[in-house]
Structures are given as C-alpha cells and as structure tokens.
C-alpha cells in the first residue's frame, strides 16, 4: 500500500488550498500586530489561483479521471466543474473580506485560514467516491462553516446562529452516518462503485440507508422540510460568510448528492427519484412562499436560497432518466453561485457603521431591512443596477444567467415528462418575481431615509462588480459552461 504521485495529483486542487491555509497561519504569526493584512490575502489568492489553474488545465484538455488514495477520491470533470464554482466563491469572499472583516472586528489570520480549509473540504467532498470520505469531508467543511458563522463573537446574533447551525448540523450528520451504516450493512462496501454493483436488488435495509442518507443531505442543502435552520443561520452569520456558505456549501453538498445518486445508487433511481421529487416540490413551494412576507432582505434571500435548492432538486428529480437533467442542475449551481453571492455581497456593500447609545464603539451593520434599500438608486446608481441584475437573475428573467439556468432546468424537466414539477417551478418563479422586485421598488421608487450615506468599501464593490459581470456573461454566453456540465455528468458513474 504505497502512496504514489498519482494519489497526490488526484487531490492537487485541494492540496494547493490546504497549503495556502497553513501558510496563512504561519505568515499571520510572523506579521507584526498592527501590520497590514495584505500578505494574507496574497497567500490566499496564490493557493486559490493554483487550484483554479489546475482545474482549468483539466477542463481544457479533457483528461481521463484520476483516482487516488485507494479509490476513495477521483479528480474527474464533475469535481473539477463544481470546484470551479467553489473556488470562485472562495476567491470572491477573499476579495471582499480585507477591510470588511476589520470593520467587523474579526481576526484576519484565523478567518482566511478557516475559509481556505472549508474550501478544501468542499473540493474534496465533490471528489469523494467513498462513503467514509464523503462523511469526513462533510464534517470538515461543516466544522469550518460553524466557526465562520460565529466568527463575529461579539455579536450575539452570530453566536446564536453558529449554535443553531452546529446543533442541526450535528443532527443531520447523525442521519448521514446512520444511512451510510445501513448501506454498508446491506452491501458490505463503502465504495460507491461497489455499492452500485451489489445493490441490484433493493433490500429494505438498503432502502432505509438510502432514505436516511437523503434526509442527511436534505438537511445540508436546506431542502424542505429540513430547512428550518437556514433562515436563522443565514440571517445571523456575517453577510460575507452567508454569501459564501449559501453558494459554496450548496455546490459541494449537491455535488456529493449527485454522485451518490448516480454512481452509488443507479438501480434505485425510482425510489430516490420519488423522494427527490417530493423534496423538490416542497422546497420550491415553501421556499418561495415563505420569502414573500419577509421584511428583511437578508432573510428573504435566505428563503430564496431554499427555493433555489428546490430548482436544483428539480433537476435531480429528472436525473434518474437523463444525464442532461443533472447537467442542467449543476449548471444551475454554477450560475446560482454568482447571482446569490452578488446579492449578499451587495448587502455588505451597502452596510454602514452605526453608533448605539451606550456602546463603546460604532458597530457595523449590513443593509438588511427593506428600508435600508430605500432610494439606493439615487445615492448609488451602479450598486442599485447591480442588485437589480442579481435579483432579476434570481427571478429568472433574461438575459441573465439565472434565466439560462432555469431554461435548461425546465427543459430537462419537461423533456423527462415531469410536467407537474415544471409547472410548480414556473408558478413559483412567478411568485418569486414579486418578492425580488419589491427590493427594486424600494431601491428605485422610494425616497431615501435621512441617513448619511457612507462610501462603500472598494474591495466589496469589486466582488459585487465581478459577480455582476459573470451573471450577465453567463446569461449571454451560457454555451461553454453548459456543455461542460453535460460532459461532466456523462462521465460520472462510469
């Protein structure tokens, strides 16, 4: 049992990120106390950049998958595709965090290191083809995200969110592990490929394992009825962290779910297809309807991210018969990354420092309430335009990325005969137009409150602009990324 070069190559993107994480801790120790934290950003960028470089190389050349560590991880097109989304979200988070984290009084060294470790966990999760690996990586990324949620320790809301997330997350992990144990009991293997071979006939034990596993995943992606933690956690976490986890955690967890379904349980597609169908319908309906009455934009976006998990699940429900549907689902995850990240980042960009009577120092507040958006178009026309773009994209109005994504999802669903699901998706999109455009109403059609306008942070603005650019680019030119998503799904499970 020797570990060879091939093993290291198979985890090379994650290695680059982990290396950067360790280096960040080291450099942070060597930096003088009040020195600029820019070197930490540079180290993080280097790691992310190296990982992105590896991913692009593998995409460009269409190389055969590399298996490593005794067949527990695979570097294939699916993992590379989703790693791109995860790395992009990480890079956007690092971009916007320099000044922003200082204002939130967060220690930069810890923050970058934990973000990078979370990213590494996510990348390895989408590479895992082994139940043990999957469980370990989910735990690694979850632990990092629990910490990130509570990283603004002085804010009670943040701590409460972290606690809630931790408790529900641990509960979900229990389900996952229990499901995996049953699957192992039914098949005698933890390798997805082995499980697929041995599970020709669905035994009750295997079905129970599969069901528990799905419940665990449903918790992690925030699907209804396992979504209760999402609004509280997303609202309580610092906004940049919310942006990061609403996209990257989802991409990683969905990646693992797709792989488990396609590579591990192909013969049981009828059973899990039915479960996913129900989850998708419930998630789309509840997520969208619950977003309507929200007065807090941040909470509305949290419910909207539940709703979007429903759209992705719609793709998975159609997946049992068609790889195109799964391609559409992961393409949707990709476009969802930028529009959701952009929307949350705009909340941070529009934030301001507020001095409370009796407080020692002014505290940082993100734009959360609808009233914080009143008259934004007058004060900051470009920010308002970018936010409008993200919201339109989330609502699925062309020519944005969200429209391209929805088009491909609904096409796949209709093609596979899931008319009811497609209809629910379309009707719920109509509902979503209402609550997304309400923010636009406030930005453009209400007068600003009497509050001094603060200049937004350049770095956050850069992240918003990048996300906006990608949202419009993926809307006008969805071709390449979509073809790659199709190709990625074709090779899974072979």
């Amino acid at each position, binding site marked *: 049992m020797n570990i060879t070069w091939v093993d290291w190559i198979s985890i090379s993107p994650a290695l680059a990120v982990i290396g950067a994480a360790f280096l960040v801790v080291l450099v942070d120790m060597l930096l003088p106390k009040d020195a600029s934290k820019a070197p930490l950003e540079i180290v993080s960028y280097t790691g992310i950049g190296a990982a992105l470089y590896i991913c692009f190389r593998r995409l460009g050349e269409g190389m055969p998958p590399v298996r490593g560590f005794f067949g527990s991880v695979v570097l294939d097109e699916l993992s590379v595709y989703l790693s791109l989304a995860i790395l992009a979200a990480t890079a956007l988070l690092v971009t916007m965090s320099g000044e922003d984290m200082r204002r939130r009084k967060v220690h930069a060294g810890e923050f970058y290191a934990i973000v990078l470790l979370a990213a590494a966990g996510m990348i390895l999760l989408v590479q895992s083809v082994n139940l043990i690996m999957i469980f370990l990586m989910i735990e690694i990324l979850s632990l990092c995200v629990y910490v990130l949620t509570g990283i603004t320790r002085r804010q009670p809301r943040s701590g409460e969110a972290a606690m809630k997330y931790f408790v529900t997350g641990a509960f979900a992990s229990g389900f996952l592990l229990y499901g995996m144990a049953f699957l192992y009991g039914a098949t005698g293997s933890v390798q997805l490929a082995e499980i697929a071979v041995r599970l020709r006939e669905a035994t009750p034990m295997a079905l129970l394992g599969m069901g528990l596993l799905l419940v665990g995943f449903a918790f992690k992606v925030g699907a209804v009825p396992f979504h209760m933690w999402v609004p509280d956690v997303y609202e309580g976490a610092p906004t940049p962290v919310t942006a990061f986890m609403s996209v990257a955690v989802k991409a990683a967890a969905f990646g693992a779910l797709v792989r488990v379904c396609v590579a591990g349980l192909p013969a049981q597609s009828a059973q899990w297809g039915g479960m996913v169908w129900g989850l998708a319908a419930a998630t789309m309906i509840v997520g969208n309807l619950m977003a309507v009455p929200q007065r807090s934009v941040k909470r509305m976006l949290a419910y909207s991210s539940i709703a979007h998990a429903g759209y992705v699940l719609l793709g998975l429900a159609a997946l049992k018969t068609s790889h195109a549907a799964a391609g559409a689902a992961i393409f949707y995850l990709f476009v969802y990354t930028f529009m959701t990240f952009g929307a949350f980042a705009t909340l941070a960009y529009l934030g301001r420092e507020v001095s409370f009577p009796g407080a020692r120092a002014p505290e940082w507040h993100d734009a959360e309430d609808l009233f914080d958006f009143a008259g934004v*178009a*007058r004060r900051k*026309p470009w920010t308002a335009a970018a936010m*409008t773009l993200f919201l*339109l994209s989330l609502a699925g*109005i*062309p*020519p944005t990325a969200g*429209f*391209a994504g929805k*088009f*491909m999802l*609904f*096409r796949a669903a*209709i*093609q596979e005969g899931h008319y009811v699901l*497609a*209809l629910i998706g*379309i*009707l719920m*999109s*109509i509902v979503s*137009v*209402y609550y997304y*455009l*309400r923010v*636009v*109403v406030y930005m*453009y*059609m209400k007068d600003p409150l009497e509050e001094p306008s603060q200049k937004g942070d350049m770095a956050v603005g850069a992240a918003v602009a990048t996300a906006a650019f990608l949202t419009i680019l993926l809307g006008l*030119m*969805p*071709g390449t990324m*979509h*073809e790659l998503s*199709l190709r990625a799904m074709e090779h899974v499970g072979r």
Partner: protein
Amino acid sequence: MASFPYLTLITFLPAAAALLAAFARDPKGELTKWVALAVSGIVLALSLLVFAAFKADAAGMQFVENHAWIPAYHVRYHLGIDGISLAMVVLTAVLTPLAILASWNSIHDRVKEFFVSILFLETGMMGVFAAADLFLFYVFWEVMLIPMYLIIGVWGGPRRVYAAVKFIVYTIFGSLLMFGAIVYCYILSHRFGEPTFDIARLQQILPYQLGLARTAQAVLFLAFAVSFAIKVPMFPFHTWLPDAHVEAPTAGSVLLAGVLLKMGAYGFIRFAVPFFPDAAIRFTPLIIALSVIGIVYGALMALAQADIKKLIAYSSVSHLGFVMLGLFAGTASAAQGAVLQMVNHGISTGALFLLVGYLYHETHLRGVDDFGGLAKVTPRFAAIFMIVALSSAGLPGTNGFVGEFLVLLGTFQRHAFAAAVGGTGVVLGALYLLRTYRVVFFGPVSVPKHEKVRDIGALEFGYFAPLIVLIFALGVLPNIVLSRTEKPVEAYVRMLKRPGDAGRLIGVRP
C-alpha cells in the same frame, strides 16, 4: 438579401447609446436627452430605409440575419421581418422619438436615467418584432418589461408603485406560462429532426403534430394565448391597463398604448395561431365573444370616466377588441383591417396620450369637467385634438375609418352578430370622444386661470405634426401598409381556415 445588418442596428443602437450615456458624466441629463433624440432619429431613418427597400410581393422573412448563439440548444441570433413586423417596427421607430420629445420638458427628476430607460425600451420593442427565433423573442419580450416597469414606477403619478407592480406581475404571470410552452414546443420539434427555436420552422412543424393530443394542443395554445391576451389586453385580463396608463408618464403611456399592446396581437398572429391552428379554431368563438365584450365594455367604461387619461385607457381596451375580432374573424379583409388597426391605434391613441400629457403639463389637471372653453384659449391645440379624436372615432378620410371598416366588413361575412354588436363600439367611440371634446373645448372658459393656458408651440408641433400627417396619409392611402402586410396576413388567415384533422390525414395541406 441585404448583407448590411439593418435590423441589428435598429435593435441595438438604442441600447448601445443607452450604455454609453449611462457611463457618461451628465448629472443634469441634457446630453442624454440629445443622445436619445439623435439615436431614435437614426433608428427612424434606418427603419424608413428598410420600409422603402422592403419587397411587398416576396414571401417569407426579409433582411434576415442568422448566426449561431447557443449551439448546444440550437438557439440562434436570428432576425428577420415580414410585412406585419415591418409595420410594427416602423410604428415603434416613429413613436419613440415623439415620446422623447414629449418628455423633453416634462421630466425633471433623474433625467438621465429616464432617457436611458426609454432607449433600452426601444431596443426591447424592436427586438420583439424583429426576432425570428423564439428564444430570442422571449428574451426581448422579458427585457422590455424592466424599463417600462421603471418608467411607470419611478416617473409615474401618485399611485405609480402599485401600478408598476400590477403591470409587471400580470405580464410576468403570462410570460412565464408562455415560457413553459416555448420549452415544450422546442422539445416537440425534436420529433422532426434537429430541435429548433426557428419561428418559421416551428410554424411548419407544429400544426402537423398529428400525434399531439387535442388537450395538449389546447393547453399549449392557452399558455401562449393567455400571455398575449394579458398584453393586448383582452377582457377580462385588462385590469392592469387603466392603472398603468393613468400612472405612467406621458412617454410611458404613449409607448405602452402605441407599441406594447400591439405585442399581444402580434403574438397571436405570429405564434399562438400558426403554431396551434386547430386549437385556435376551437377557441375562436370564445375569443370572438371576449373581443366583442371588450369592445362594448371598454367603450361603456370610457363613457363613464371622469379622468381623460383613464378614458383613453378604456378606449384602448375597446379598440384592441376590434383588433382581436378582426384577427379571429377568419377572413383576409378582417385580418388586414386588424393589422392596419394596430398601426392606427398606435398613432391615434399615441397622439391622444400626447395631447392629454400636454394638457396635464400645462394645467396639472386632466378631469373632463376640469376644463371648458379651451377652444377659445388654445385654438391650435383644439384643432389637433379634433383631428385626433375624429381619427380615433373612425371618421372617413382618417386612418381609423379604414381599419374599423375592414374589420367590420370582414367579420360580417362570417360572424354577422359579432360584427353587429361590435359595430356599436364605433358609435359609442364617437360618443365618448365627442362628448369629452364638447365639454373640454366648447362653452365658456370654466376656470378663470385657464384663460392663460399656453397654446402649443414649436416643440409640441414637432411631435404632433408627424402624427397628423400619418393620420391623413393612412386614411387616404392605406395601401402603403396593406400592400406590405397582404402576404403574411393571407398566410395567417389560411391557418384559421385549415381542413380538419381528416383532411390532413389524407395529406391535404392548406
């Protein structure tokens, strides 16, 4: 065909200018105004060139541009126009600069953003009429909503937010249903080789889907039809219209009535009927009934309005009822009349909204009873109002007469009763317009300060003159439009007179 990309220029020049203007440092918006006027003028010139170069006797699309866009989904950047779209493109090109002129002095807040929105709106409107690819059409159809939403919601009247939200929620409800149907059509086309979004190809394929169950056809037809009926708006989907019209600024009302409503009727001609003719034939009685109800109901509601702007809004419901009646009467003359009436309504109602906009700008009033005796104070304004009102009421010699006459004539041949009931709409139309005219312009000047209302000047004359010319030109020479729309209208009517399923089974193609 011409390799010069006329349609691309017509469609995207406004958006390009809008982007540049948005980046320019122009806090007062003076520069943007001029840019908007110049660009919409260039677009008008280009569209007139296209109008002149258009070959009336050629079948199919002209000025075609066809490039790959998203190859994985067979989505193409495919533009092209036939006679009907040509008429709509020119109408849009004429009305946009007039709307810009009408906003010249009446928009004071966020001037730059307003004209940028108008330019984006023009791109969307042109794209809807020029698209020859269903996907592309849908993109423009949706893109156009956002600037109109902002124009109503930001620069509108007191209840603007309510009106804007109602407008967009109604429209998007329809268009997302249509979106589902579009995706389904795309998948259906796969049975006949490469799947496609090409409109001409879908028009060939979809009517011959013998395997397509009647229910499925009906559902698809309804998905398209409801979306377009909301836009037209047909009774009972019209309730957003009075709100949107009343609250929108003048330019918004003009373009909303002049162009956006036509998109609904255009959608019926281009998509709903040719794609699913059998379902269209089945639903014809319903649509004719709703159209006739719309004609009479709209006219009666107009009669009851105290607000002139609301009166015109309801008169639009009535006039668009004529258009829908003509489109579904199943005769070539009725359909020709309907298409002509689409143009006429754009001109006359556009002009009416401009007139009310002017009156409101000068007096800040627009109730019928707020005025009296204005003919003495503002004779030129009164003269123009008279011409426009008569054209809207369909006086012979003006454009409105030819359209309404053709519609009623054509309808009478097949649906005499509908034509008879619809005919009362003409009478009622004359009634509400002339009654309003009498109250506003004749008699003594009711409000003392109205003695000093300014009569129209050079700027206003600049935007009324072209419309007056068009009113008489189309009244005397309707053939400049009719000759160009003849071919596509005949093709459209053939779809409504197809042999039944049995005929097609033995290979009879209409």
